[in-house]
């Protein structure tokens, strides 16, 4: 556990040194611009635009970080040969992997939390005082964070057995497929054969369903999200990410690093 924590904190420090958190400046500018402009170009949806734009930015920026940095976590260490020095110490490969994962999730948590604060500042400028329903935005932010944690796990899995370029493609492809996972279950209208339908249904359950974490529509219109759904999504993300990381650990432990 200590090894994992050491790797995680170092990964976080490395991300900060690599100026990953500079994206916050972009986010701040975006939210400031939106807060100023939104009142002038739309009718009646100022707060809704701020919320949906803010959550979209949090999600998109987070996905970029999760995919691109997630893929590079392992491959960079191999390319720079820093991994060999690390593995010469009493650190298991799976500990290294989990530490890297934890470090990036920690980075994303800090990044997402800072962006959430920025979102609330922008929201406050177009609408004050804030209402109780505005705090539902935090639920959406939390679910985005769960989604990002799952994407990082997938990116790490792919980076364990293929090139960074292919790992990015696989992760991005699986993300898009995961967004459409629900559609695979509701394709009866297309008139597919029952066997195909069953197969698609099975695949839809195996794919990571990223729509589970999407409550932007609800919170942008001040609708609450049931606590039970948040719990289920949390368990879903934990379970799925654990399975992916377990697979990644096995693949990485058998990888020939020579």
């Amino acid at each position, binding site marked *: 556990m200590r090894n994992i924590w050491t790797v995680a904190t170092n990964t976080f420090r490395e991300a900060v040194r690599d100026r990953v958190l500079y994206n916050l400046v972009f986010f701040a500018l975006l939210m400031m611009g939106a807060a100023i402009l939104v009142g002038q*170009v*739309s*009718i009646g949806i100022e707060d809704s*635009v701020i919320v949906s734009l803010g959550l*979209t930015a949090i999600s998109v920026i987070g996905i970029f970080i999760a995919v691109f940095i997630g893929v590079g976590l392992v491959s960079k260490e191999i390319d720079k040969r820093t991994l060999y020095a690390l593995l010469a110490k009493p650190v298991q490969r799976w500990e290294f992997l989990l530490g890297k994962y934890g470090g990036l999730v920690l980075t994303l948590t800090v990044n997402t939390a800072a962006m959430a604060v920025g979102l609330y500042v922008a929201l406050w400028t177009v609408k004050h005082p804030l209402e109780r329903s505005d705090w539902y935005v935090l639920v959406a932010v939390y679910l985005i964070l769960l989604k990002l944690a799952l994407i990082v796990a997938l990116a790490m899995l792919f980076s364990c057995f293929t090139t960074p370029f292919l790992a990015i493609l696989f992760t991005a492809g699986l993300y898009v497929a995961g967004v459409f996972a629900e559609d695979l279950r*509701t394709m009866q209208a297309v008139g597919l054969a029952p066997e195909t339908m069953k197969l698609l249904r099975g695949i839809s359950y195996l794919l990571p369903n990223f729509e589970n974490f999407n409550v932007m*529509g609800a919170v*942008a*219109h001040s609708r609450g999200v049931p606590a039970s759904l948040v719990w289920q999504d949390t368990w879903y993300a934990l379970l799925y990410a654990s399975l992916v990381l377990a697979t990644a650990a096995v693949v990485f432990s058998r990888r020939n690093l020579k």
Partner: protein
Amino acid sequence: MTGKNMAVWWLPVLLLAGFTGVWHLQESIDQQKNATQLEQDQLMLLSGKLVQKLSLEYAPLMGAIYWTRVVQYFGEKHRLHQTNLELLWPLLDIATTVDPHLMPAYRFGSMFLSDHPPRGEGRPDLAVQLLERGIRANPEQWRLYQDLGNVYYFDAKDYPKASAAFAEGSKNPKAMIWMKVMAAKIAAEGESPETSYFLWQQVYQSTTDPMVKKNAGEHIRLMQVELDLKAINRLSDDFQKQTGHRAARINELVQAGLLNGVPLDPDGFPYALGDDGKAELNLDSPLLEKQLLEKQFSGPSSP
């Protein structure tokens, strides 16, 4: 057997058990989402559905962007005094398909669609279609029934349907009590200046948008003019019964004691009597131009 080999043997078992858990969790998440209406219609029949799908999970932002485009499009056409609004409906269609809970798109969009030219597109049929879609997606929003009733009342001139819309909306526990009153009044009387005046007042009081408020304010003033003219004409009729001739000037009604003074329109200009002895707006009143415009385009417009 080494630890690495053990892990390889255990992994399929772990994955099988794990994905069984994922499957069960997904089923309960689906049930939960269905129960709380977080899931949206999946039919891909309209182009809006395609936009919704292409926008991945960012549909609410796309909806907001499309709604902003509606506002920009409508505002630009207004500024240029152009009456061809052929893109209005497709844009509204996409905005509300992408985000079915975008209330301003239903409420303001139906006004833009139903209001007669040059203020709107003059398509109450499309406004009804838009509002009915809004009601299907947001049955708890009684204001949509109010808007539907207004479109039927002011533009479609379909009073039974207007009454039915107000009556349906009044069933919502959160609906204002006047919804029921309007339903009964319209069912009994059809169109009347008092009803129109009241409905415009409701729009004026409920909106926070300055443009809509200004429009509603103008209509309220015009409806007030209509009610004032009706009252003056009634007094003029009484004067004719008493004296045997029609009053030529308002002052005659004042001198006869029927009025306390020369009544003023909402902009502060005195009313006058025309050549036919009927009450009318003063030629200097700014409301005269607005009244003529209203008459040119099929009577009082929708809110």
